[in-house]
């Protein structure tokens, strides 16, 4: 049914490919911190466990595991047989079938008439404790294993005290349920001891939990700025990066292309001065240029501030003072990128335009007596098409490539956030930043893809006839 709307079909097709690329980016992001025996929670625990007791640390880890969607949550049905830890003849710890535990209760969340959640306990079945010959509750287990945990077949303790059977709960609807621990019997100093380990879920489950978290904006907690969520860090830094990069890029692209086209068309003295200058600027790495600007305008002349996005004495607010401070701090970073970007675009546009000037349709247009303005627009329109691809690339590099500029000017952008994260092994933040960069690259490329399709009839016609 979409056959009648080839443009929509085209956009959807392109969109699908970009979405697949996005998923690939997520997969890489997901897999990297899990290489080897690592997992993101252990890394964070390095920081989070500081100053916590063992029990608190265990709870912390459990809650982290649950929030990462990495551990099995207690949603399983339980066995009706209890086990306990004991020694066999060889002196190895093993799980001994101990008794039939008590009542199995299912906990269910429902919505009451007021619309609020309430919990209902459903008794699934009642299991009588095992009785001995005299009809009393078996006591031998209780007497010699007082305090020893009783386990089910998965090693989950179900009873603390045999005399008082505990209820085994099955919770159907869990938001953040408790983490399931696998308990294995081990020997410690000759005594059978139970060792508790959280049960990690399979990587497929982890992956879908990761994706779900991403779409909920949950990128985990920062290690270096614990317990700040990564999404907060990105929310604070990304606007600064976009604010400095996007206008600079667009302005540099537009002005550079105009100047390049003019240089190609006018030639003469303008071209003779402009072209070598552009080549020179194009050759200077922009961090060198940035440092030169800082040295000249900030250190020697003292006209402009060189550090930060606003003055140290300012607090972000909607005040005139604050805007003025931001504006002043904007100038140097802007001019450290702008001329270099401009000259890069201009040299490219100049050679493209010179090529276009020599084409047959230009000669024909001239011979048909078209006015100069029209001819320039012909050149610009055609020479601009390859430049659009260049725009896609620079837009893509925009977010990631901002690092060096932000370093020089201590600009609080995403590049800076990522640098700090890398220096402190803050994997969660690095992951969040790279994911943000992937998204920006993809969005930029997608938009330019659509833009090219709109501007170039060769692509457009290809869409209309349904060609590849």
């Amino acid at each position, binding site marked *: 049914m979409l056959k009648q709307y080839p443009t929509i079909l085209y956009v959807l097709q392109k969109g699908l490919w970009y979405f697949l690329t996005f998923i690939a980016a997520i997969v890489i992001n997901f897999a990297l911190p899990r290489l080897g025996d690592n997992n993101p929670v252990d890394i964070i625990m390095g920081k989070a466990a500081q100053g916590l007791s063992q029990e608190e640390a265990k709870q912390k880890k459990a809650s982290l595991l649950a929030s990462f969607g990495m551990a099995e949550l207690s949603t399983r049905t339980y066995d009706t047989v209890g086990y306990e830890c004991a020694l066999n003849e060889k002196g190895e710890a093993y799980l001994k079938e101990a008794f039939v535990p008590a009542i199995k209760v299912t906990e269910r969340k429902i919505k009451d008439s007021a619309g609020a959640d309430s919990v209902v306990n459903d008794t699934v079945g009642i299991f009588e404790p095992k009785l001995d010959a005299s009809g009393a509750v078996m006591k031998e287990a209780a007497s010699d294993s007082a305090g020893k945990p009783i386990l089910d077949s998965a090693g989950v303790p179900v009873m603390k005290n045999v005399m008082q059977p505990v209820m085994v709960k099955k919770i159907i609807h869990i938001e953040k349920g408790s983490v399931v621990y696998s308990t294995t019997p081990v020997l410690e100093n000759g005594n059978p001891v139970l060792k508790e380990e959280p049960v990690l879920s399979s990587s497929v489950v982890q992956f879908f939990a990761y994706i779900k978290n991403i779409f909920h904006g949950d990128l985990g907690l920062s290690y270096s700025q614990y317990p700040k969520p990564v999404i907060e860090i990105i929310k604070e830094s990304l606007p600064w990066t976009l604010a400095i990069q996007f206008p600079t890029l667009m302005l540099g692209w537009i002005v550079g292309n105009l100047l390049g086209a003019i240089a190609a068309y006018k030639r003469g003295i303008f071209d003779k001065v402009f072209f070598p200058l552009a080549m020179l600027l194009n050759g200077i790495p922009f961090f060198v240029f940035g440092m030169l600007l800082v040295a000249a305008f900030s250190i020697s002349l003292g006209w402009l501030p060189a550090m930060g996005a606003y003055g140290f004495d300012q607090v972000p607010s909607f005040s005139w003072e604050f805007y003025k401070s931001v504006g002043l701090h904007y100038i140097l970073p802007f001019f450290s990128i702008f001329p270099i970007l401009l000259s890069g675009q201009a040299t490219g546009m100049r050679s493209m335009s010179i090529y276009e000037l020599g*084409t*047959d*349709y230009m*000669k*024909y*247009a*001239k*011979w*048909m*007596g*078209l*006015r100069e303005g*029209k001819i320039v627009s*012909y050149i610009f*329109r*055609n020479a601009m*098409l390859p430049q659009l691809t260049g725009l896609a690339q620079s837009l893509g590099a925009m977010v990631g490539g901002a690092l060096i500029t932000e370093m020089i000017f201590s600009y609080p952008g995403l590049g800076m956030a990522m640098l700090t994260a890398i220096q402190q092994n803050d994997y969660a933040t690095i992951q969040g930043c790279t994911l943000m960069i992937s998204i920006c690259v993809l969005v930029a490329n997608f938009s330019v893809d659509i833009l090219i399709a709109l*501007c*170039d*009839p*060769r692509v*457009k*016609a290809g869409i209309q*006839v349904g060609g590849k």
Partner: protein
Amino acid sequence: MSEKIFEVDHLSLHYLTRFGEKVHAVTDVSFSMKQGEILGIAGESGCGKSTLVSGLMGMCIPPLYPTSGDVRVSGESLMNRSESDIRSNVLAQKISMIPQGAFNALNPVRKIKDIAADVIAAHQKQGSPSSAKEIYQRLCERFDLFGMDTQRVLNSYPIQLTAGERQRSVIGISTLLNPRMVIADEPTSALDVSTQKEVIKMIFDLLEKGIFSTMIFITHELPLLYHVADNIAIMYAGEFVEMGTAEQVVKDPRHPYTQALMGAMLSSESSQRSRKPVAIEGAPPSLNQTIVGCRFAERCTRACPDCKKNTQSIRMVGDRLVRCDYAK
């Protein structure tokens, strides 16, 4: 009818290279045309045919510059006039051209109707702009004459058309403003035989309908020219070497080069099947230095020692012009 609407007087053109060297691509070309005449110009690749077109349009695109001579349309000289003057008063209205390679001649990012509208807009008198609708109406009327699928062609981009459609669109655009004369620069070279025929037919339809009457037809295919042109001029190394009626030049060539060119033609006539085409040995002289003597002498089978010393001047042999002292 005998009024000369187009006169070319000893026209020479040169290219200026980066190092200040001059390449004399066209030397001493003179001819005149009457209303309704069709002049064919033929010659091998690189002999200056397309360069000559630039000169004849009065619009030399650098690095091409006129050296000397004059071009007059209805007695009005085109030399030493400003570019904007030529553009607004001469091009497309008095002289128009049909370029070779129609695909490359059309701006790939504009629809045919937009390219045509640009041409109309460029020559509109100040103060009387027609609306886009009027222009489109005018285009439709004109393109309907060509027996084309007007609506589709006008609303297509060049890549969406076949080679024949493109070529016909270009002819349509070139003749939109009813020019007094048209220079067709190899309009059929890149086309297959049947499309060629269509295009030729279209050009003659336009001639019949009186949209234009005088034409210079440039090609390297002499047999085609024989059918199309009243008069034929043969060009070699930037010079006209022979000029006469089509019958004279094709059936009874006098200049050694024209004769050699005829010998090199392939023919499908059965009587000619056994005849092997003979390629002309050697290559044309380089034009970036002054050439002494006859330019064809190096390759001429009948050259005598004097040929390399004496510059040949074009002269009347019978009722045609030949640039060879020994032609009879």
